[in-house]
């Protein structure tokens, strides 16, 4: 009750000074539908390389997958290779002919069933030394005060990055991202003849940070210290093993500028410091109608991946699992986890 009595004096300061008075709000607008979305690119690994196609829909829904497109990639040595449709708007390039090589330029071409042809600008894969990353994670208890004045303890997993920037005569443009894979052990009754298989669930990310660095903004041989990459609540996905893939992307300048604008758009919180928003378009255009709006960026990047493992034993409190009752009955994935979105049965080759 101590807080409640003070609320009358404190509440307005919180609201005035820290802009934390936000409410979900239904804002009806016209929607910009059926515009092509391209998401993906090529990198300096041996492949395969993936690309997603979709079309825009309403703001509160993800893009609709776009199927039956014919996609090819051509490098500036004249090599050309086609993508194969995997399903759900995803296409795979095997990399048998065209490989991701630093310093090489790539052009993407997309032909849709309606006859429209789209082409990217030539994307040059940069050739600058990547930074040496040392990511780490930690678990913290964050106290949050609800609008009713109740203190809530949130157990959060935070991923930080420390990275040594490399000396280079040219600017380096870096981006970091995290994707996650966790394992699920479905419930296996005692004395069962066969148990449901273990699943490995791929999860894009749990936070929506875009971390960008232009190396010339930093002093020579600078070390980036303790940059927060991700913050997420600890939930059932940590009930067995959870791997965080921290990927560093080295980009060219125009790709970096694109992501800088994307970062600006997703960081808007409505404060007076927010700049007016605008449409973000990428490097792909309709070959017969240059004014058509196309979203997304076909990128050519160098990648370096660091993997972090969080085991159930690292969590400082008891986490329910499929072996707890009644959870094992309540959660359908405790019987069979194959139907979780992103779930696969084969163990990833890099699992440790």
């Amino acid at each position: 009750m101590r807080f409640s009595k003070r609320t009358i004096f404190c509440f307005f300061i919180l609201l005035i000074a820290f802009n934390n008075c936000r409410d979900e709000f239904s804002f009806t607008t016209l929607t910009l539908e059926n515009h092509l979305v391209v998401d993906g690119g090529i990198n300096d690994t041996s492949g395969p390389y993936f690309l997603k196609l979709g079309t825009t829909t309403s703001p509160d829904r993800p893009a609709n997958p776009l199927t039956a497109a014919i996609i090819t990639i051509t490098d500036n040595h004249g090599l050309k290779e086609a993508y194969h449709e995997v399903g759900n708007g995803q296409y795979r390039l095997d990399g048998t002919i065209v490989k991701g090589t630093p310093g090489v330029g790539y052009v993407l071409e997309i032909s849709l069933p309606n006859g429209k042809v789209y082409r990217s600008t030539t994307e040059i894969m940069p050739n600058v030394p990547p930074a040496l990353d040392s990511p780490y994670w930690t678990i913290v208890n964050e106290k949050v005060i609800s609008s009713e004045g109740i203190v809530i303890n949130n157990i959060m997993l935070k991923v930080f990055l420390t990275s040594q920037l490399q000396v280079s005569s040219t600017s380096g443009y870096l981006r970091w991202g995290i994707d996650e894979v966790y394992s699920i052990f479905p419930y296996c009754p005692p004395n069962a003849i066969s148990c449901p298989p273990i699943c490995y669930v791929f999860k894009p990310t749990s936070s929506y940070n875009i971390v960008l660095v232009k190396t010339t903004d930093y002093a020579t041989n600078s070390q980036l210290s303790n940059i927060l990459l991700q913050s997420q609540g600890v939930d059932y996905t940590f009930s067995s093993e959870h791997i965080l893939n921290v990927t560093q992307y080295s980009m060219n300048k125009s790709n970096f500028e694109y992501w800088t604008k994307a970062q600006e758009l997703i960081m808007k919180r409505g404060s007076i410091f927010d700049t007016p928003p605008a449409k973000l378009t990428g490097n792909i255009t309709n070959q017969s109608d240059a004014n058509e709006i196309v979203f997304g960026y076909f990128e050519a990047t160098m990648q370096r991946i660091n993997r972090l493992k969080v085991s159930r034993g690292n969590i400082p409190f008891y986490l329910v699992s499929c072996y707890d009752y009644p959870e094992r009955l309540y959660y359908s994935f405790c019987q069979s986890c194959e139907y979780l979105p992103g779930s696969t049965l084969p163990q990833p080759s890099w699992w440790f």
Partner: protein
Amino acid sequence: MSLHFLSFILASVILACPFQARSQERKFVLLGDSMSINRSNNKFALTGTVTQSEDNKPLQGVALFVDGLKYGNNSDVNGKYIIYLPPGKYRLTARHIGKVPSQRLVAIYANGVLDFEMGERSETLEEVVVTARKKEDNIKEVFTGMVKLNISEIRRLPAFMGEVDVIKSLQMLPGVTSVGEGSAGFNVRGGRVDQNLVLMDGGQIFNSSHALGLLSNFNPDVVQDFTLYKGNIPAQFGGRVSSVLELRTRTGDMSKYKFKGGLGLLSGRLTVEGPIIKEKTSFIIGSRISYSDWVLRAVQNTDVRNSAASFYDINANITHRFSQRNSLSLSYYKGHDYFRFSNQFGYDYTTQLINLRWKVILSEKFSSEFSAVSGDYNSKLFDFDIANARALTNGIKYFQLKENFLYTYQEKHAVNFGAEAVFYNGKPEKSIPFGSNSTTAGQQVEKDRGREFAAYANEEYTVTPGLSISGGLRYSLYQYLGADTVYHYQAGQVRSANSMTDTAYYSNGAVIKTYQGLEPRVSIRLAISPNGSLKASYNKMRQYIHLISNGTAPTPVDIWQVSNSYILPQIANNFSLGYFRNTIDNDFETSIEAFYKLTSNLVDYKDFAHLLLNRHLETELLQGKGKSYGLELFIKKTSGPWTGWISYTYSRSLLKIDGTHPEEKINRGNWYPSNYDKPNNLAITANHKLGKRMRFSTNFNYSTGRPVSAVVTNFPAGSVAIPVYSDRNQYRIPSYIRLDISFTINSVFKKVDDNLSFSIYNLLGRRNAYSVYYQQPFGSDALQSYKLSILGSALPSITYNINF
């Protein structure tokens, strides 16, 4: 003593000394100078000066009435007045808001001089008066769109956090709005914030806000009065295209020491004044300081507990009176704000002003005022992130000289003429790393310099009692100065880093670019009945300095940028037309005013413009046309137990940026609403006096929501949903509604001039939207819209004020 003998004595004194000694109240005074009898119309000129008893400072706007004749006049800026009367006996009354009325019985037989000295009236004795002007001034004043208020009037409005506020009171008047709570500055008749010339004793203020615009930086204990020109702007003012807010601060009491202060929950204030040499030299020092950190420390959220928010301001003035005609005044102002959010970010900004003014009354008709002002504005934005720890600084300095002469002839002519010069010096923008772990590189970008000269003359001419004209002409000349490096761009191409072809270096003091032009100002008043008049005005204004602010509203860290080779001066043509009518013995003032303004070279920004530490801002800016128009309705009740006003404004503010290339167009070159385009605005203010000691006040505010760009779809980039926004400002946030109340008890303690004020700001606790934004909720692959409110509840406050 016989009447004839008294007449003889007084006449002798008048002949010997044209400046009559002050007469005693309620004693019969004979006035006349036989050498200056006006035989042509058998009327004599009664002139004099009205001063404040506290500091002998001339008092402007005092209403002098002649009882029985329903005739009178107002004192001018030098406190001087003139009334023509036929021989006879009269009772003359002088009234001014916040002053004890003064009455004199006079017998006129020739031209004469009668000075008035008016003392301050304590709050407990005040009548409920809602105007600083004579009641019918609104129909007799030649200017359109002019608002005069003094601090006693705004004290009657409900206070925010216990502080009465100049800017918030202006926002209750027609044609004055803001983007929303927490935004600095104010918008007048569809103009941008930087288009308002804010003058404190003649010195320009570049940021008029404390606490991100929640309060203005004008201490109510030091401000004497203020005038907002939003329609016709006299030629003695220039440099901004929308409005002029002219504030005058008080000078110290010449005869005795006085203290004035107030204590609230979050801030306190104290003002001390008094004589240094009695009746010759006085001082006044006033300060406000906030102490809100104790509240932050009481909150359990770690980020909030580690945060800080504070401000202070100081006003100081020393005035020396060499004689009743000759005074010198030195003023100093400093306002400072500091804000830090946990270990994430912070800012501070400081405004300083030093002002020297020399006023001389050269003759009965001729006076002069010289001022020299040095202004300095600094702002810093802090990034406390360990690896990126740095401070981004910017600011501007200026030095201003102005000489204004006022010539008055009879009561028909008042001519202001003079010249001014302002030298603007943009401070370098710097990125300064701090802390041993900061890895950011230091950067510095030099900013531009320029000087502005102007000469002007403006006459107010009363042709007949029913027709008056104010006409003026201002010539302004601006020069963009070296040392600077000017970038050249490929002809026919969009200005960008990629189209740069060359650079040219100009040495220190070299004139790089010159802009100049005439600025005519005209206003006409035509009385169409004893209680009604029509007014019309036209202004042309030029503005050579711009606030580069690519946010929804100005922030303290925005950049003041002078015109250069590429950033052209803004030029506006303002038209207004109004009908003013008073009813029921002037107890009700009503008006309807229409305005139309066309502005060229209005600044807006390219998509994703980067303004900080940018050596070539012109590559990020676009200039185009602006137009605003509207209709203002105003009804004011000036006497009785209930006083107050209702104001309604319908106005639009639109922009058109239609460059040659697609990148130089906004919304494909079509007209679009500005960030502050809020078509409907309704403000209601009411005051009710409850006996002699108590007063109740209330405000009600309604306005259309401001325009925003809304998300119309999204697309994935990796795991992130990127929002896609509509054309600029095509949607609106919900309407703004706010109700405030206050209750004031005077004389809390016996024999003490004090009061206790309770107020509740936003009584309805309405969460008015400031903005709408979009976020990807945890686990979602699409976007959710949120409404951000700056104030989320009713804000009660209590303040104790005392004068002694």
